[in-house]
């Protein structure tokens, strides 16, 4: 009971994978293990694996038939692997050399999973959970434990380390419910399934106690509350009703001209991870692109991207934007984004290590290629370039030096190029506090990392969610300090972290003087509506 009392009312924060609300019994699910199987002689092992593969294929086919549509297509990837001789031949070769069937199968899958996990592309990383799904299904079948689908009550908030798609499909969601994953990714197949079914889902919660009885899951706010009090439930229900009402009117507001507040125009821009994000139906209504991340370029199989490939990606986005401004951020690798051949291995604390601009300055060979591509793209004139993780003014000047050199060199080669406006991302408190020392054209506040570094809280650790609250005075004071300097010095200041896309934070940000926010395309309607509501007084509290 004592232990229960300590978790009652605790809230954990993760990342949104699918919006919506769930209130129900809390159920913890765990993956399969391969223990407890005794290997036979190689020919029998090969036969056992063959039988397990056939049976697993049939199970998946049956499941695909039952669910149909997009979900069935997702399962086809697993079926295709079961029928891939190039993939299976080495497994059977290992078995012929006396490796037990379950070991040979697991290690082949582990190798693939590691491969996908190492990809810089989040979409590819997410495929690893499909492979884990397949690995576990075949292992269960090998052990003779078919049809082990865990019994989950209807309407439950299901919590797992990661949940494979087939297990998601085996759960009965007809009575609602929600999904809370400790790891996982918003681009995983299971997240796609959850969105398609309208099941709220949060990923990357870090660690959560397993022994709660009930839970509230808010996909919008990415929060999970365990054994909530009557007061928490009341607040949760009010939030749910309000958001339901709001969503319907938000889409209509998108089509209206720019939002305004206190007589000033508020520019709403979008953050994109890759070129395809522009295909989001709401992207066209943005006032520009406030943050284009470029790390997706580092996830290519052929190694680090060449100048031409980068140039084409940048140019495509600038063309899409037309006259609207586009801020492209130079490589922000390192931290939780390792890139083979680029980032530094073995740092004891990568978030405080050689990442972002620090890494680019340490690897001018790679940085120069990106700056050349950006200098060529700059002839379109709507480009701005932003440097991440700047700590000292000297780093900005060093980057500018390499940039100027790249432009000169291109022009001497007869290639059209220009020097775009150069700004910095403000996410290191040292830079924010001494903002007047930086001769940057613009400042963009990266509120996620700024909050993490300001509060000394790992932002992926759910147990610290209360301490990393972005609305605390230290955070707002620092934001205001940066915005005030920007106004005095005539430098644009914007904010591109999760705060900008959180309706609860928007009033505080506008009060700090921010007039430019950059959000994910999916949050654009909600934020425009929030500002609209604030200026008409409807939301004033």
């Amino acid at each position, binding site marked *: 009971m004592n232990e229960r009392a300590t978790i009652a009312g605790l809230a954990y924060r993760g990342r949104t994978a699918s919006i919506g609300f769930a209130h129900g019994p809390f159920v913890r699910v765990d993956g399969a293990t391969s223990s407890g199987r005794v290997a036979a002689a190689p020919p029998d092992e090969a036969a056992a694996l063959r039988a397990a593969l056939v049976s697993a294929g049939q199970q998946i086919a049956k499941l695909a038939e039952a669910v149909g549509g997009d979900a069935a*297509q997702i399962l086809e990837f697993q079926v*295709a692997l079961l029928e*891939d001789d*190039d*993939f299976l031949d080495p497994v059977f070769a290992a078995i012929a050399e006396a490796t037990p069937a379950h070991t040979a199968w697991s290690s082949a899958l582990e190798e693939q999973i590691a491969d996908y996990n190492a990809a810089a592309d989040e979409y590819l990383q997410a*495929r690893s959970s499909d492979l884990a799904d397949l690995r576990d299904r075949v292992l269960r079948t090998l052990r003779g434990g078919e049809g082990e689908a865990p019994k989950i009550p209807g309407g439950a908030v299901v919590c797992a380390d990661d949940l494979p798609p087939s297990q998601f499909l085996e759960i009965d969601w007809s009575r609602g419910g929600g999904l809370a994953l400790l790891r996982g990714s918003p681009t995983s197949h299971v997240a796609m399934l959850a969105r398609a079914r309208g099941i709220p889902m949060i990923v990357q919660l870090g660690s959560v106690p397993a022994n709660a009885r009930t839970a509230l899951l808010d996909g919008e706010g990415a929060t999970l509350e365990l054994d909530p009090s009557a007061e928490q439930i009341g607040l949760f229900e009010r939030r749910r009703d309000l958001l339901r009402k709001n969503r319907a009117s938000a889409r209509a507001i998108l089509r209206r001209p720019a939002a305004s507040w206190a007589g000033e125009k508020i520019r709403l821009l979008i953050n994109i991870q890759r070129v395809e994000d522009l295909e989001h139906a709401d992207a066209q209504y943005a006032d520009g692109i406030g943050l284009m991340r470029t790390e997706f370029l580092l996830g*290519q199989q*052929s190694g680090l991207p060449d100048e031409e490939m980068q140039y084409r990606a940048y140019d495509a986005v600038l063309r899409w934007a037309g006259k609207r401004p586009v801020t492209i951020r130079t490589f922000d690798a390192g931290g939780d984004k390792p890139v083979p051949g680029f980032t530094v291995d073995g740092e004891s604390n990568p978030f405080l290590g050689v990442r972002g601009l620090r890494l680019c300055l340490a690897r001018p060979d790679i940085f120069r290629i990106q700056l050349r591509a950006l200098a060529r793209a700059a002839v379109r004139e709507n480009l701005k370039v932003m440097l991440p993780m700047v700590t000292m003014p000297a780093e900005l000047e060093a980057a500018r030096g390499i940039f100027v050199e790249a432009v000169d060199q291109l022009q001497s080669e007869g290639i059209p190029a220009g020097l775009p406006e150069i700004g910095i991302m403000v996410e290191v408190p040292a830079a924010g506090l001494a903002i007047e020392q930086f001769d940057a054209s613009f400042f963009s506040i990266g509120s996620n990392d700024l909050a993490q570094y300001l509060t000394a809280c790992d932002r992926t650790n759910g147990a610290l969610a209360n301490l990393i609250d972005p609305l605390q005075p230290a955070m707002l004071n620092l934001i205001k300090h940066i915005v005030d300097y920007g106004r005095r010095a005539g430098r644009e200041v914007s904010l591109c972290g999760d705060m900008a896309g959180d309706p609860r934070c928007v009033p505080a940000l506008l009060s700090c003087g921010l007039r430019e926010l950059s959000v994910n395309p999916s949050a654009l309607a909600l934020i425009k509506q929030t500002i609209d509501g604030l200026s008409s007084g409807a939301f004033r509290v």
Partner: protein
Amino acid sequence: MTLESPNGQVITGSVRLVHAAGMHARPAVKLTKLAKKFQAHISIRASDAAEWINAKSIAKVMALRAARDCIIQIKASGEDAEGAVAALVDLVAADFPDNAS
């Protein structure tokens, strides 16, 4: 998109990958499924990579990590090689339509 049919046995073709997300799971499944309908030995590679891989292997096709806008080269040998290359070029050029499996 080009299709050449030299006098020899090997038929080749190439096509730009227009799929927004690159050669990800769904397009890769469609490509290998279609390739398996042919007897011919079919290999593909992306953007002049050194290695040609078996177009019927989902693991290998995914491992290409082929990105949007790269050129997929296809070569096939065997009885129905010509049809195989034409069908695969069509599939990629049409951005992996749902009715093409």
